């Protein structure tokens, strides 16, 4: 029964080995999806390539459905899986700052690592900027601590917040994703940029 490392009390080295192996899968999947290309990623925001939306929502739904199936068959105790805590202010403001970074840099941290691993020099510079960003955050933390800690809501769940069961919420998300995929396919035709997509 999972999570294996918690329930079976794995030694630290084994948990770190698992992290390394999962990282290999993560990096491989991102690169295969084409997330090692900033111009492909940026297509999401100009409509000519919507791979980001398709990969992102498909992955979230596979993990959401998969974890509930494992839990249903008694193979995974979801109470032991980490749920991200909700700090309203920092989630929104942090997200807006990240969005600005995304459109300037063309990468997010995960895709930047993926692009760096195949030799993209712009991604190496993006990651160097990222290290400066983390350093600036640490150094300015005393000034923004209040903002970072404001409006703390705990590990709030969206199905409980909406007052529906996990299964119903998953179904709603799947319907929403299919609608978004349909719009995305239309957008790729409408905003098609063969000059860019043939190049990446």
């Amino acid at each position, binding site marked *: 029964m999972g999570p294996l490392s918690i329930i079976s009390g794995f030694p630290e080295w084994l948990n770190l080995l698992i992290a390394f192996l999962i990282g290999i899968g993560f990096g491989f999947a991102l690169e*295969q999806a084409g997330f090692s290309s900033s111009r492909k990623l940026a297509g999401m925001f100009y409509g000519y390539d919507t791979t980001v939306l398709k990969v992102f929502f498909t992955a979230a739904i596979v993990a959401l459905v998969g974890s509930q199936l494992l839990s249903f068959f008694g193979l995974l105790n979801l109470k032991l899986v980490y749920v991200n805590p909700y700090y309203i202010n*920092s989630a929104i403001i942090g997200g807006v700052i990240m969005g600005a970074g995304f459109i300037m840099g063309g990468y997010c941290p995960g895709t930047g690592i993926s692009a760096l691993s195949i030799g993209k020099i712009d991604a190496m510079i993006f990651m160097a900027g990222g290290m400066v960003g983390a350093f600036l955050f640490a150094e300015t933390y005393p000034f923004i601590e209040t903002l970072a800690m404001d409006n703390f809501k705990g590990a709030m769940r969206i199905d409980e917040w909406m007052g529906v069961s996990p299964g119903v919420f998953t179904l709603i998300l799947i319907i929403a994703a299919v609608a978004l995929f349909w719009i995305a396919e239309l957008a790729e035709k409408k905003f098609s940029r063969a000059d860019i997509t043939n190049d990446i």
Partner: protein
Amino acid sequence: MEKRKYMNPYLAGVLLGLVLLSAMFFSGRGLGASGGIKYAVVAIVGAVDHQHAMETPYYSKYFENGESPLKNWLALEVFGMVLGGFISGALAHRLKFKVEKSPKISNKKRLLFAFLGGVFFVYGAQLARGCTSGAALSGMAVFSVAGFVTMIAIFGSAYLFAWFFRKLWI
């Protein structure tokens, strides 16, 4: 050699979802990327100015157990990501040192904005306690409201600013 095509996006999504599910099943947690960058910075600051790291609560908490900040789940996962991306790139004949950019802008401009983008993105990720991987994707997979809100904020903001930075891309 001819570059291979990228994987079908829906198939790649299934693969990524299975990797995320494995992280939940084996380690009881989601994926991450910006956290790995943070641990690298903490380790560098600790090596360069150990006294400063010990006196600053934001760094010192990572040195409390007396081990390297890099001996950490996220740091190891990020090392794995570099290898995984390299393997994928090698199989697809995509390994090449290059600056990827629109032909309409100079290398210098592309690299300047890549750097600035990195600064903004990881600063925001520290504030939001995770990036597209750790907060948005992994959060959504465990029904976290924070995951959905962060996802909407990231993409909403990028759409909002897209017009101002369009010359970089189209």
